[in-house]
């Protein structure tokens, strides 16, 4: 009888963030659905109450079904039988419960049978499910594909496909990578050609490392423009499993998230429907899909970190050595405190980014109905810019922290943690994928460094610094100001060499410095609303300060010449 929503006050805290008022108003378009749909909210308070009620259901399924199934699912894994994926029995049960509760298609509008959830409560659901079983969170979270169809497909396709997410609980997959196109999606070879007789697009080729590849519907990135070799020749297609023209050749044997099948797929003359316009597949649609997938990995990371921290805390309280519980030893409680602080920090970052995405996406959908006013357009742009630079930052920091927290949690368990007897070994393995897929940490740096070079992070720091805080928070704010000045110096130092490779060499350090400062500001704002965040905020900012000093001194020591010495061939 566990409820992963009700036992976590942080979630309710973020759900009640002041910006949520704007978000519910925009997302519900001034609550125009009320009276038209019985499940539509009447006002902001009613909307928040709806989110809470549904999150409570998700929390219950996560606590009572998904989490207890996680060990069996990890041990059994998914298999291929007769070219089809067979889930672990626990996974089947999880999916069934999610279907019975109508929890697919959460974010779709009500006219497509969805619940019209904003990103914030949707991401919260993802965090809750990830805490129970990060692998299952993938299968559940791929309902994101519906969002891409909703955003870009024509009305006919939307009406055909979207209502089935909630009504029938169909599952989805995004088929992007291939044996020779992983991080570099421009190299995709999967072919799509228009068959004049059959009046359909046909797909031919192989996809590899596809999460939940045998789903009911798949979004497939394929080369529709013959003779092209780059991303501009790629379009996005929707393939339905019941066409029977795609087989699963194998399921990878992975280190972690074993319940989530990672498939190699073979398409042979597989009929598919075009999503949106030709040639925009990679450069527009997949970029958008990837951004929400990155937020999904952020949620997954927070969920894993939370689970790992809780395991360590329980263990440290129970385990006695030298005549007392090990939690009483400084070496152990420091680790635990840091794990807690890191989890709180990445959660703040995750929901801040989610709010940015919520505001600009809501404006985007409003703009389909009517022309936006000038100030609305400006606001949309502002939040879109913030979302663009905060998304890679969130993915980067949260996934790295999730790994650190899982690592420390296993350490707190000592030798027992290395055994299969405790959940931490699974969490440790599951965490390891978060900083790899949906763009490795190194690729997040490539995206995030733009926020350093175009001044977007710096601007956000200035704006946060203008907030009035409680007097007792001022010393921490002062520290952040010092850190900002140091960040400016670091950026200047690297930039004045006017060398791209040198810039890229220090890129991660610059991004992390910015991330530390911004997260510090976010935590101060959280603590302004609720003083129980004072302690973790102070811990975080002190730690962040020392990290940034370290990065800064490294940048000072490692100039162009020293950086050159690192080169390998």
């Amino acid at each position, binding site marked *: 009888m566990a409820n992963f929503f009700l036992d976590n006050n942080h979630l309710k805290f973020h759900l009640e963030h002041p910006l949520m008022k704007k978000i519910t108003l925009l997302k519900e378009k001034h609550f125009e659905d009320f*009276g038209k749909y*019985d*499940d*539509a*909210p009447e006002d902001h308070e009613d909307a928040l*109450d*709806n989110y809470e*009620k*549904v999150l409570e*259901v998700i929390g*219950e*399924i996560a606590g009572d079904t998904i989490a207890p199934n996680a060990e069996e699912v990890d041990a059994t894994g998914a298999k291929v039988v007769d070219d089809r994926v067979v889930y672990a029995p626990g996974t089947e049960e999880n999916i069934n*419960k999610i279907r*019975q*509760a*109508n*929890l697919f298609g*959460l974010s779709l509008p009500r006219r497509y049978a969805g*619940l019209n959830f904003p990103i914030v409560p949707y991401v919260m659901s993802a965090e809750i499910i990830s805490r129970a079983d990060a692998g299952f969170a993938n299968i559940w979270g791929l309902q994101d594909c519906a969002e891409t169809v909703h955003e870009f497909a024509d009305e006919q396709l939307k009406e055909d496909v979207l209502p089935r997410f*909630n009504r029938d609980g169909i599952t989805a997959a995004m088929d992007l990578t291939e044996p020779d196109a992983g991080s570099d999606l421009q190299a995709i070879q999967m072919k799509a050609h228009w068959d004049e007789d059959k009046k359909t697009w046909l797909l031919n080729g192989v996809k590899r490392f596809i999460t939940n590849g045998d789903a009911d519907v798949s979004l497939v990135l394929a080369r529709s423009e013959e003779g092209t070799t780059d991303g501009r020749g790629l379009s996005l297609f929707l393939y339905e499993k019941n066409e029977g023209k795609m087989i699963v050749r194998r399921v990878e044997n992975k280190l972690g998230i074993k319940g989530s099948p990672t498939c190699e797929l073979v398409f042979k003359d597989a009929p598919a429907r075009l999503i949106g316009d030709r040639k925009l597949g990679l450069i527009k649609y997949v970029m958008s899909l990837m951004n929400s997938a990155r937020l999904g990995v952020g949620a997954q990371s927070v969920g894993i970190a939370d689970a790992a921290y809780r395991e360590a805390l329980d263990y440290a309280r129970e385990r006695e050595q030298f005549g007392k519980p090990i939690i009483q030893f400084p070496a152990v409680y420091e680790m635990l405190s840091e794990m807690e602080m890191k989890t709180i920090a990445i959660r703040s970052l995750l929901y801040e980014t989610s709010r940015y995405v919520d505001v600009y996406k809501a404006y985007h959908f409003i703009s389909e109905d009517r022309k936006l006013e000038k100030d609305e357009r400006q606001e949309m742009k502002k939040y879109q810019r913030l979302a663009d630079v905060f998304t890679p930052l969130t993915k980067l920091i949260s996934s790295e922290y999730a790994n650190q927290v899982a690592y420390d949690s296993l350490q707190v368990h000592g030798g027992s943690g290395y055994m299969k007897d405790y959940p931490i070994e699974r969490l440790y393995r599951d965490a390891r994928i978060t900083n790899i897929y949906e763009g490795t940490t190194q690729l997040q740096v490539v995206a995030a460094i733009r926020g350093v070079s175009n001044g977007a992070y710096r601007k956000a720091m200035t704006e946060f610094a203008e907030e009035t805080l409680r007097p007792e928070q001022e010393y921490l704010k002062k520290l952040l100001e010092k850190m900002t000045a140091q960040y400016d110096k670091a950026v200047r130092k690297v930039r004045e060499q006017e060398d791209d490779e040198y810039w890229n060499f220090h890129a991660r350090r610059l991004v992390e410095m910015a991330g530390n400062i911004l997260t510090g500001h976010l935590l101060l704002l959280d603590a302004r609303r609720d003083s129980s965040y004072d302690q973790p905020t102070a811990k975080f900012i002190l730690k962040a300060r020392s990290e940034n000093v370290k990065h800064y001194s490294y940048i000072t020591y490692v100039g162009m010449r020293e950086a050159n010495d690192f080169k390998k061939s």
Partner: protein
Amino acid sequence: MSFRILVLVKQVPDTRNVGENAMKADGTVNRAALPAIFNPEDMNALEMALKVKDERDDAQVIVLTMGPSRAADVIRESLYRGADKGYLITDRKFAGSDTLATSYTLAAAARKLMPFNLLIAGRQAIDGDTAQVGPQVAEKLNLPQVTYAEELQDVSGASVIVKRRLDRGVETVKVDTPVVLTVHSSAEPCRPRNAKRLLSFKHARTVTELQNEVKDYTSLYNDRPYLEIEEWTADNLKVDDEWLGLSGSPTKVKKIENVVFKQKDSVQITGADEDLDKLMKDLVDSHVIG
């Protein structure tokens, strides 16, 4: 004609988390000291009914509970999970009912909801553990009963096939409808709340609850009359007041004792196979397991 299923549910104190004040001096349960929950086996009963609804488009699930005003919670929980309609049987006159008075009252309410095809209840409630109410209702309605039901296997015709979970095995019976079933905890657990139904029914209230609401529900209830949970008092039922509540309840608690388990003797065994075999054999022989 639709296929009507009545489900009897009960709000019970959560006796699984018993604290110091769980019992009153007179030996009755101190309901105020324990959180109120949906009786677990009634959840199994509800699931059995909802499964029929999954299979038959014409099935209608009606939930019936007897209790104080707050027992409307279990009706709402049932609506969130798929029940079509709920009735709360409530009256001060029902207070202090034992199983005889309870089944008398529930049977009167069920009679008012006739005709129905199935009446399903949990085997027993965790506050009294009597397992008497379901069977007594069946007797009063003069209907056949199948107790310890685990699975309904065929609901397509004028009779149903029911699998019963008994101590020493499984019995499968065929019985004509209408019939009363009481459901065992080994039956399928109840499905979760459905997000859409939860949001649609979250304002479902009884008339009494509406009177205590600060918010004005008039226009909402005009638009969505299905939100009303019907409330029946003794006056709505054809009952004799003598048979209700305390006066209709011959059962009196004579004495209450605290049972403390004590260790009597102990046996040390090693991890050797033969010792483990012997232990298993002893446990099976003494009916601790198996």
